[in-house]
């Protein structure tokens, strides 16, 4: 953690240096100190916290919904070759559709509302997790499945005690990817589609040419992602204590 903080400080110092020396045009990008000051101001305003919450809440809601959907689809599709092959084209076709392209459609159906945001988040951030889950199912050790079958653990217990822990390493990576995409889509739809949140504040600051605030808000989305990741990292550490990636005794 100490090293990480150090690295962040180095980057910030580099930024400030670029601004002070004029390499970074102050018209284009404010200096690190200005942005930091703007962020401090933001922290004191209640509208900022409301926006932050709006952005975060939609991202989390979307994440929760898409997790459910991804798990169900993955479970169905990995259990049946027929389903897997039949739906292959559809999924591969849907995946590259950019959520941005769907914003007008979302606005038409739900208006500038949290529902619209959450729907787009769900659609846009679903695929990484789903892809990870499908790959994860292929990485399950056949021997543990053999054990499950030979002791007839049944579907529920196999899922809970064998499949779930086996797919967890991939799933957690997938969740982390989906989580930041969820935040990004949340912010971008707010920017374009007007639902309340950090994105909308960014647009307002942009229109007013309040660049320090605008970059401060952008930094805040980064910090939001960082915080969500800290949660996932802690979860990984306790859920994957048995996995080589978390076991320091191997080294």
């Amino acid at each position: 953690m100490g090293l990480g903080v150090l690295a962040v400080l180095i980057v910030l110092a580099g930024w400030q240096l670029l601004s002070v020396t004029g390499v970074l045009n102050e018209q284009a990008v404010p200096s690190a100190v200005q942005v930091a000051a703007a962020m401090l101001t933001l922290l004191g305003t209640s509208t900022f916290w409301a926006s932050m919450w709006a952005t975060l809440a939609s991202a989390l809601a979307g994440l929760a919904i898409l997790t459910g959907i991804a798990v169900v689809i993955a479970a169905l599709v990995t259990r049946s070759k027929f389903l897997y092959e039949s739906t292959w084209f559809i999924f591969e076709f849907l995946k590259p559709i950019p959520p941005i392209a769907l914003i007008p459609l979302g606005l038409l159906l739900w208006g500038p509302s949290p529902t619209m945001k959450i729907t787009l988040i769900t659609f846009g951030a679903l695929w990484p997790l789903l892809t990870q889950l499908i790959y994860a199912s292929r990485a399950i050790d056949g021997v543990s499945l053999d054990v499950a079958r030979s002791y007839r653990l049944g579907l529920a217990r196999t899922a809970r005690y064998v499949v779930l822990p086996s797919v967890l390493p991939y799933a957690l990576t997938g969740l982390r990817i989906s989580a930041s995409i969820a935040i990004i889509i949340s912010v971008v739809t707010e920017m374009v589609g007007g639902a309340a949140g950090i994105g909308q504040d960014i647009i307002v600051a942009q229109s007013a040419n309040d660049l320090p605030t605008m970059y401060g808000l952008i930094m805040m989305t980064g910090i939001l992602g960082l915080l969500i990741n800290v949660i996932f990292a802690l979860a990984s550490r306790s859920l994957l204590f048995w996995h080589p990636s978390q076991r320091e005794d191997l080294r």
Partner: protein
Amino acid sequence: MSAPLSAPRFSWRLLLLRSWLPIMLVLVWWFVSDGRDSLYFPSLRTITETLTTDWLGPAFGSAFVPSATNFVVGFLIAGIAGIILGTAIGLSPVLRAMTEPLIQFVRSIPPPALLPFVLLIFGIGPTMSIAIIVIGAIWPTLLNTIDGVRGIDGQLLDVSRSYRLNFWRRLWYVVLPGASPQIFAGLRITLQMSIILIVVSEMVAATRGIGYYLLNSQQTFAVPQTWASTIVLGILGYIANLVFSVVEHRVLRWHNERNALTTKGSS
């Protein structure tokens, strides 16, 4: 739970299996929407007409090709850079501790917000579009590589240490293959995101390309064109995935066969 193999070896059966549902859906869409054009939901017939006149016509060379090129280049750079950086970070605890917060931070910033920095470094042009694709799409590969490298069975690392494989051999024969199942999961998502980011990259600085076409038609309420370009993206994604899965099938054969084997008893 059996593991279906995405075996791209061609067979008529597989083709049928993969195509019946899409064909059905297209037919349903066609007949339900036919003659019921509405502004936001044009009929499939209208969309198809736009598709053929625009995308099989001049737009193919002037819009599809440059976008597809940027996408391929962007994906390759994102994939390769993701693997290289991910391996380095996965192998080095110090590097990991240093980069972890930065990575998690940058990952959640919407790519358009990074525009001024990208502009500063790359200027305006295809390089910038590619840079945006790379910056936006590198993360899944990077994260999966880090996690994959860290998740390698310690026993195999013991073997390579005890036989004193030098760093490069260890990397090439042990670390990368060991992480490859997870790396491929990451690459698959990077691939998908690269296509999505075509649009974002052309939102900024392009006068042609699929993304430009899509955004422009969206802004000007040319809805059939918006749908058509969305479909073009879908088709591009589909083709890219097909190629990708052929490569993956070859590289991960050991992995898929091994894990399918024990419990399926495939003959």
